[in-house]
């Protein structure tokens, strides 16, 4: 059965999600990928504030293709999350609610998820056209010079994701494979 979640996401809501749950996400989320994470890290190193309040908010690892006229966004599927692993534990400790991406995470990220009661969702990689239809609006809020890698504030409705790593550290990528290995 599908669960429905409204972003931002509280610790209590995150705790109810289990690896393998299919979730339809609505509300406000933020995009950031490689270059934006590097800038956020530099800001934190200098003691500066992040471009948005990270507490309870969801970061979507995504850099869209350009929007055609009359559309909020172009193709908008997830990118590989492990490239953000270096920056993620600190963001989790600052209260990040959840992440949406695709692919494996490092042990340091998994430990950070457990420590902070967060959750890692996967969206279907390579379904960027379909996922773009679930994005109602998109606004660049920081690092505009980075182009596709700028930080965007998105309003999403029934955005389909699967819980891959839950707040207890259960990892669907590991358990699901065992089920179908022959």
């Amino acid at each position, binding site marked *: 059965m599908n669960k429905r979640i409204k972003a931002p996401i509280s610790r209590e809501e995150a705790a109810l999600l289990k690896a393998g749950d299919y979730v339809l996400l609505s509300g406000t989320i933020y995009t950031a990928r490689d*270059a934006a994470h590097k800038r956020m890290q530099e800001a934190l190193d200098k003691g500066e504030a992040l471009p948005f309040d990270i507490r309870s908010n969801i970061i979507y690892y995504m*850099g869209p293709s350009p929007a055609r006229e009359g559309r909020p966004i172009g193709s908008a599927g997830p990118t590989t999350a492990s490239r953000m692993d270096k920056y993620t534990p600190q963001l989790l400790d600052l209260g990040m609610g959840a992440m949406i991406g695709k692919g494996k995470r490092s042990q340091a990220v998994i430990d950070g998820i457990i420590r902070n009661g967060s959750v890692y969702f996967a969206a*279907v990689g390579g379904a*960027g056209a379909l996922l773009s239809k679930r994005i109602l609006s998109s606004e660049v809020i920081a690092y505009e010079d980075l182009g596709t890698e700028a930080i965007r504030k998105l309003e999403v409705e029934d955005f389909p994701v*699967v819980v*891959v790593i839950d707040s207890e550290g259960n990892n669907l990528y590991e358990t699901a494979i065992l089920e*179908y290995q022959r």
Partner: protein
Amino acid sequence: MRSISVSEITKQISEMCIEANHFLSPDMKKVFDSSIEKECSPLGKQILGQLEENLVIAGTDRIPICQDTGMAVVFMKIGQEVSIEGGSLADAINQGVREGYANGYLRKSVVRDPIERENTRDNTPAVIHYDIVPGDRIDIMVAPKGFGSENMSRVFMLKPADGIDGVRNAVLTAVKDAGPNACPPMVVGVGIGGTFEKCALMAKHALTRNLEEESPIPYVRELEKELLKEINCLGIGPGGLGGTVTAFAVNIETYPTHIAGLPVAVNICCHVNRHAHRVL
């Protein structure tokens, strides 16, 4: 000599970049259809269904199939009786990429320098492979390559004694390590033999082969089938979320090699295995 103008090449490349990013080849569509029946996992089936729906939306609403519209890889087979006129061929190809990525609302994903990483903002330069062949035609293959799967690709410099089992292990290792990162179901391109760079180039080129065609070499054909079966027993499945369809196909190319070596390259492509082909 037959003459072909650079402006014609630019126009073709531009159209091909847009076409490849919105429409998969018919053989790719067919393999999607048949894999939904083969997939045993309910979630896997659901994901394959989403991916098929994604292809329909991409074509109908003109939204790129994937937001990673790739680095443009261009295979040029140029007939030796062709005279290319009106300017530099490389400039013409890059101009085609520039126009296609702008007019097609495709993402610009190329940085000028691998360390300094400033986006070139027009997705140039392309990676161009030239081949001079007999005849008076130009055969163009444009294959935009996304980097989720490119990053999971590998080159193994095996020993001759490793033999075909060594090749098998190399391919399975690369696919296992790639797992969910490479956006399965994948197409696996393999190059065996040649030199370090030749096997990598063959692996890339193998991805452009029609999935309904088989290798003309009997043992290679067998190896392709066996590897596909073994990969689909790994359990990775669609999206890496578990299942029995981890790869759509294994395409292998081979080439003579040195008495001391057995190079193997594995170029992994996600389910958005894009390529547009035209002959001028």
